[in-house]
């Protein structure tokens, strides 16, 4: 690729690419993010390439391999442009049929999406409720862009925002635009990005300034950043270059967790391509402005998502946070002023510059502008990544986009913010999703994980699960976090194992408040949130465990018994399935479970076709 020597060079290239493309040619789009690949998209790609070559149809039908589109429940899926035909869960054996249909310009009705509510067939992607009810500012780009082809990004108006910023020649203007947009950090704390950039811009130039992209997405169940890193890495690079121009930063670092190999691969390719074209590195587009980005990989620590621990990790030390002040904006990597932003925040920057701050601020609510990508997972029909305007209510996400509960059990709560957040009970689902409302309700927005829980989820078990995670991930530097998470886990473990007392509950709450107050960093300060939130909204479940020795959701093994009711037809299936031979009974006679031998593995319940196994 030839290096672009000026802004005009770039604009000429972009105009040529746009003019050269023919949007009427049918294109098979296969999302191949990590979730797509895990469900078999690679085989679909292989078959498609083979068929198109064999039939000599590579000019008439194009193939585009992209990152994740977000409807992970339906992966591996196929999208046919320009018709926008959506084939969910495309099987290997159907691939050839689909290709033939595309060649003839036909639609295979038996393979289309069926609306579970109405039973109707829905052909076009944008008419499926899951997609229709979102505002897909960022995710829609994943559909149109092949992440490892920079020309594809440019032809979709990529790097136009950078060109505009460089042509405008005013770093102050960029900072003003970002401030006016109202963009708040998408990493969880929600600090106004424009204000952070202004603080960095005002720091003395001296030894240089740095920008960091925090791609250490550590929350269990959260993978929004992964979809942007894998599907549209150039948007982050463009955002960072714009940020560097605005603040005077000279170096950038993308700190990505090592457990995202596809994201790392795509980032390395994207950085290399951007440098080759002259969009990154020395003398960008001939404007004498220089900025380069290094990739640093994490080493498996959730705590390194915390900004000061992240900086320590980049410096090569143990990932331990330090108290602030001084903030990273004053003293960051090697003591130099550093601004850290989340992946999604960076990805929004080109959008703001392209559309203009006031247009961007029209989406969302007054103090919470723009969209947010959430990973909607758990006991919900449509699991996947959803992008919604800030201020949308939880019920709209859970029902309108998520499609409601996955089976008969009713939805009980939604956990937001991962291990630092809390559970919002179903009775509060008309709460708008914005930073302030969620914090008031006892949870936090966090990075955007949204785990849906139903009646078969035990809230004590949920608190215990998160406390176990935090206990393992605590760096251990400060005493209350290290010991506090261990002790909170101990108490929750006792409660779940029929050893809980009322004194435990009191101690748990007291301990939780003390840890919240005294821990040094965000991990420790928010670690008690799952406990405090579940105590606040699901106190009755704790009492059931302690006073009545029962687990209402049927999860905590020491508190449940499996028994067979009168629906039993005596089919012998569970008897054969039981690994402990705890079930006895003859054919056509109601079977009986021996509670002393039963290990509560649940094998009998899952194999029974007559709903005859009760868990109490």
């Amino acid at each position: 690729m030839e290096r672009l020597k000026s802004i005009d060079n770039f604009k000429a290239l972009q105009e040529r690419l746009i003019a050269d493309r023919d949007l009427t040619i049918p294109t098979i789009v296969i999302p191949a993010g990590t979730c797509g690949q895990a469900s078999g998209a690679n085989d679909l790609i292989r078959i498609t390439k083979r068929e198109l070559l064999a039939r000599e149809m590579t000019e008439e039908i194009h193939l585009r391999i992209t990152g994740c589109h977000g409807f992970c429940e339906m992966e591996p899926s196929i999208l046919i442009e320009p018709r926008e035909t959506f084939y969910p869960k495309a099987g290997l054996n159907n691939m050839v049929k689909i290709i033939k249909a595309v060649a003839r310009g036909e639609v295979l009705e038996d393979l289309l999406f069926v609306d579970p509510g109405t039973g109707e067939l829905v052909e076009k992607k944008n008419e499926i409720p899951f997609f229709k009810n979102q505002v897909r500012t960022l995710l829609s780009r994943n559909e149109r862009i092949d992440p490892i082809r920079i020309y594809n990004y440019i032809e979709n108006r990529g790097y136009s925002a950078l060109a505009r910023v460089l042509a405008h020649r005013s770093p102050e203007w960029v900072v003003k635009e970002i401030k006016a947009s109202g963009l708040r950090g998408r990493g969880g704390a929600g600090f106004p990005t424009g204000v952070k950039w202004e603080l960095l811009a005002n720091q003395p130039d001296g030894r240089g300034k740095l920008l960091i992209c925090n791609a250490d997405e550590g929350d269990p169940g959260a993978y929004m950043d992964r979809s942007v890193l894998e599907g549209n890495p150039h948007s982050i690079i463009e955002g960072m270059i714009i940020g560097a121009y605005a603040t005077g930063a000279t170096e950038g670092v993308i700190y990505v967790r090592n457990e995202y190999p596809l994201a790392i691969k795509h980032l390395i390719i994207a950085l290399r391509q951007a440098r080759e074209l002259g969009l990154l590195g020395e003398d960008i587009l001939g404007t004498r402005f220089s900025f380069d980005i290094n990739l640093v990989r994490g080493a498996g620590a959730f705590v390194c998502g915390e900004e000061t621990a992240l900086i320590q990790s980049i410096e090569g030390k143990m990932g331990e946070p330090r108290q602030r002040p001084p903030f990273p904006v004053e003293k960051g990597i090697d003591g130099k002023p550093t601004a850290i932003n989340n992946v999604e925040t960076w990805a929004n920057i080109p959008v703001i510059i392209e559309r203009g701050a006031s247009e961007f601020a029209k989406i969302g609510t007054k103090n919470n502008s723009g969209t947010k990508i959430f990973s909607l997972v758990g006991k919900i029909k449509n699991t996947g990544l959803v992008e919604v305007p800030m201020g949308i209510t939880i019920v709209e996400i859970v029902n309108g986009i998520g499609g409601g509960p996955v089976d008969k059990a009713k939805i009980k709560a939604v956990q937001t913010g991962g291990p630092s957040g809390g559970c919002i009970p179903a009775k509060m689902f008309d709460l708008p999703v914005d930073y302030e409302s969620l914090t008031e309700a006892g949870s936090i927005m966090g990075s955007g994980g949204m785990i849906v829980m139903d009646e078969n989820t035990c809230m004590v078990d949920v608190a215990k699960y998160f406390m176990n995670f935090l206990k393992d991930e605590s760096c251990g530097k400060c005493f209350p976090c290290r010991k506090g998470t261990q002790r909170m886990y101990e108490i929750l473990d006792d409660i779940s194992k029929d050893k809980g007392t009322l004194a435990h509950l009191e101690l748990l709450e007291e301990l939780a408040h003390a840890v919240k107050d005294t821990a040094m960093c965000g991990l420790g300060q928010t670690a008690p949130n799952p406990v405090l939130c579940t105590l606040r909204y699901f106190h009755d479940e704790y009492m059931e465990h302690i006073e009545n020795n029962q687990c209402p959701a049927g999860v905590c093994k020491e508190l449940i018994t499996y028994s067979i009711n009168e629906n039993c037809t005596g089919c012998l299936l569970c008897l054969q399935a039981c690994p402990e031979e705890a079930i006895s009974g003859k054919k056509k006679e109601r079977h009986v479970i021996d509670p002393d031998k039963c290990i509560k593995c649940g094998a009998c319940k899952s194999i029974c076709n007559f709903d005859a196994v009760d868990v109490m």
Partner: protein
Amino acid sequence: MINVFINGLDVSVEEDTTVLEAARFMGFPIPTLCHKDGLSPYGACRLCVVEIGEGAKAKIVSSCTYPAEEGLKVRTASSRVIRARKMILELLLASCPQSKTIQDLAAAHEVRQQRFRQEHEDCILCGLCVRMCEEQMMAKAIGFRGRGENRSIGTPFDIKSEVCRLCGACMYICPACQLRCTFIEPERAICGGCANLTPPCIEKEKFDDMMCYMEPCVACEIKKD
């Protein structure tokens, strides 16, 4: 000179003074465990926490690491602070009950019981020994390893240290217990010497001029037979 308000009193302090130093200068008692004058502050024990700011924006921070800011309002013994300190002391007693330092601190704050499962650890990971070795003795022989429950202090890869001069400062400074190192149990070793069979002090013939301050190690005396 920076003006701060501690418990309502107006104090003028020099730049780069921490809130802890300013409060102690005025005679306000603030308990500490991982802090030592002469060593860099670490902020691990969180006993020195104070409340700063006012109203809804009031925060709890560790005074040993927080620099004095112009107009800062500090309360060293508000109810929130006292509750926090008491809980931390309970946790400390639950882990390390045999330490006299911790017992004295607990008694001074009227903490007479602890409600957790009793453990007997002999390291509270306050890092004083690490900082002593690095900053005062300039040896940097020991450091932290691991994360969370598996965090411990020792030499790199538990190999016998080449830079440890057996000065004993790590044992001297330790607040957790007086018998920090007993060479018989390698897990409690600090210099890594006993874990590796022949520490230089045992081969006394080669090191006649060496003066050992590792009390009460006395490995050399015991091996003498």
